[in-house]
């Protein structure tokens, strides 16, 4: 793959992904010290506080929604899908980077994933939790959300398995389950470490319960590694399928701007793009807050920025293809759709999207930018915003002017739409800070395998 100095046939040269002088003890101590310490740094309290306040905003917005109904949102006819679906797709896309890092990069034997996979997987879970709220609350009658599931009931009706919305239910619930399992399996050995270190007997008991009696037997490790690889192998097609199925929600419909075969790959690339931006958005402050630059090195930032650049360019290719489809289709509605996106009433949002997703990432061609935490953080913020705008453009500009000019209408979000969205950011931040406080954010047992002392020297 690379022609850089090759040391042996099996092991091509790889830049170091762990700071110098690390041993089994230092890795364990430094990573679990975040959990062990009784006093968290001020930044933790600030972050958690912001998240918690916003989480309460979510509770207020959702309570009002349940009391008064979806009429408090800006949705109308024809824009019946708006913030709820935009946020759903945005959140679920963010989750995809976690699975990509934990599964696909594991199969590709990318060692650098080791120090970021744990919190990226946690990010996946929390993003899916935020995403899952929206389809449930947007039904208007969330107390009967279980009607989405196939269950034998007195009404004697069943879901229609030919509908993309049912596919979505299966895809998202499977994704949430498998991500949670993958995350938990990865945590078991580290929970055992925390159990064995804990000085507080209550903490030892709680960690011990979740560690399931793990004792690090070689026989157990052997099956554990098989299970971990199998889960990675299963998660890889799963993660591709989930966003493909999410894109079917649109692509199976006949609305101009939705009915396109490019949608599945374009959505998957966008998901990974948005997800890596979010991983970096979390990693950059985190490595500063807890001084873990030995684990999340400049090399890691560089690699993640490269993935972002590559997927970002794929997404831009998607934008070009959409425009080309419209031009080449000779279809009046498709052509009008793209013209309306670019120069219609939502024109500023479209061009802001191009600025955020297409132009801002061009700076990532330069290594100095990729290795500069400040620049990278700014670019990630652009991408986070850009990917949200992309979903806004897809959902709203396609719906608000479809085939019949008599049914055209504008969509404007209300304060409740915005409050609910910001509220889910609060849920995400709160969960993330609690995770950092109570669980090791870097996989300790996998880091131990990267320590120089872990090598078994040949002697016979």
């Amino acid at each position, binding site marked *: 793959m690379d022609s850089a100095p090759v040391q042996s046939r099996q092991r091509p040269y790889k830049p170091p992904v762990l700071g110098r002088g690390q041993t089994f003890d230092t890795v364990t101590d430094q990573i679990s010290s975040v959990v062990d310490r009784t006093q968290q740094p001020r930044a933790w309290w600030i972050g958690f506080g912001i998240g918690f306040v916003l989480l309460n905003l979510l509770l207020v917005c959702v309570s009002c929604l349940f009391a008064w109904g979806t009429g408090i949102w800006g949705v109308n006819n024809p824009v019946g899908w708006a913030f709820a679906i935009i946020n759903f797709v945005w959140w679920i896309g963010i989750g995809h980077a976690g699975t990509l890092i934990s599964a696909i990069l594991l199969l590709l034997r990318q060692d650098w994933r080791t120090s970021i996979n744990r919190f990226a997987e946690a990010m996946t879970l929390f993003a899916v939790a935020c995403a899952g709220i929206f389809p449930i609350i947007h039904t208007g009658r969330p107390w009967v959300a279980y009607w989405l599931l*196939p269950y034998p009931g007195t009404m004697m009706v069943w879901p229609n398995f*030919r509908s993309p919305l049912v596919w979505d239910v299966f895809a998202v619930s499977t994704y949430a389950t498998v991500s949670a399992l993958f995350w938990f399996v990865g945590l078991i050995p580290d929970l055992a470490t925390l159990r*064995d270190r804990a000085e507080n007997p209550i903490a030892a008991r709680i960690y011990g319960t979740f560690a399931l009696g793990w004792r690090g037997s*070689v026989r157990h490790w*052997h*099956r554990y590694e098989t*299970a971990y690889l199998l889960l990675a192998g299963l998660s890889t097609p799963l993660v591709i399928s989930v966003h493909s199925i999410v894109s079917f929600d649109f692509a199976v419909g006949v609305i101009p701007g939705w009915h396109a075969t490019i949608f599945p790959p374009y959505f998957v690339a966008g998901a990974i793009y948005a997800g890596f931006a979010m991983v970096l958005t979390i990693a950059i402050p985190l490595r500063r807050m807890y001084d873990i630059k030995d684990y999340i090195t400049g090399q890691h930032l560089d690699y993640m920025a490269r993935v972002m650049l590559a997927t970002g360019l794929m997404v831009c290719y998607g934008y070009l293809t959409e425009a080309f489809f419209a031009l080449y289709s000779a279809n009046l509605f498709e052509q009008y759709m793209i013209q309306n996106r670019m120069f219609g009433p939502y024109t500023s949002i479209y061009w802001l999207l191009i600025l955020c997703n297409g132009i801002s990432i061009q700076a990532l061609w330069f290594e100095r930018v990729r290795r500069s935490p400040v620049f990278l953080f700014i670019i990630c913020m652009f991408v986070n915003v850009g990917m949200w705008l992309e979903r806004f453009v897809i959902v709203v500009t396609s719906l608000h002017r479809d085939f019949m000019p008599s049914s055209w209408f504008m969509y404007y979000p209300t304060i409740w739409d915005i409050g609910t969205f910001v509220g889910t950011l609060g849920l995400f931040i709160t969960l993330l800070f609690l995770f950092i406080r109570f669980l090791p954010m870097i996989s300790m047992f996998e880091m131990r*395998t990267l320590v120089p002392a872990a090598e078994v020297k040949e002697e016979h």
Partner: protein
Amino acid sequence: MKPVLPLHGVMAEFDNPTEFVAAIHAVKSAGYEGFDAYSPMPIEEAAEAMGLHGNKLPLMVLCGGIAGFCCGYALAYWTGVINYPLNIGGRPLHSWPAYIPVLFECTVLFAALTAVFGMLGLNGLPKHYHPVFNVERFALASRSRFFVCIEATDPKFDLEDTKRFLQSLTTVEVSEVQP
């Protein structure tokens, strides 16, 4: 008075993986069968030294996946064709290509559940109590140290002999494991 239980075994501690793997080889070639080794992270060479090749898990996961596929298909077919047929745009009731997304998800879900619970089941986890934790220094097995424990159930086990044998392998410590 508490009944006196027989000893669980004798345990040796190692501070690096090289000696640990060499010790597993030595224990194995000395003819011991009932022993186990413990490490803070997976070590491929240790598994090889213990003669572990392959396991039943992949086959179980394959079966789980197939079961998931069949259950998904049965559900979609029975509900959509037999129990609750819906005419949607005159399309055939058994329009199997439209079932593919759900079937795929069911396959992956069942396979993943089998992988996790199969792994835990084969490993005998969750386990409430295990004698190895009676050794105080075993707390380091999840941190930085490596342990080999020869169990008393092994026919070759003799407290003094086995202890001496393990002492010849390690530079750190050998201790008795209370039941």
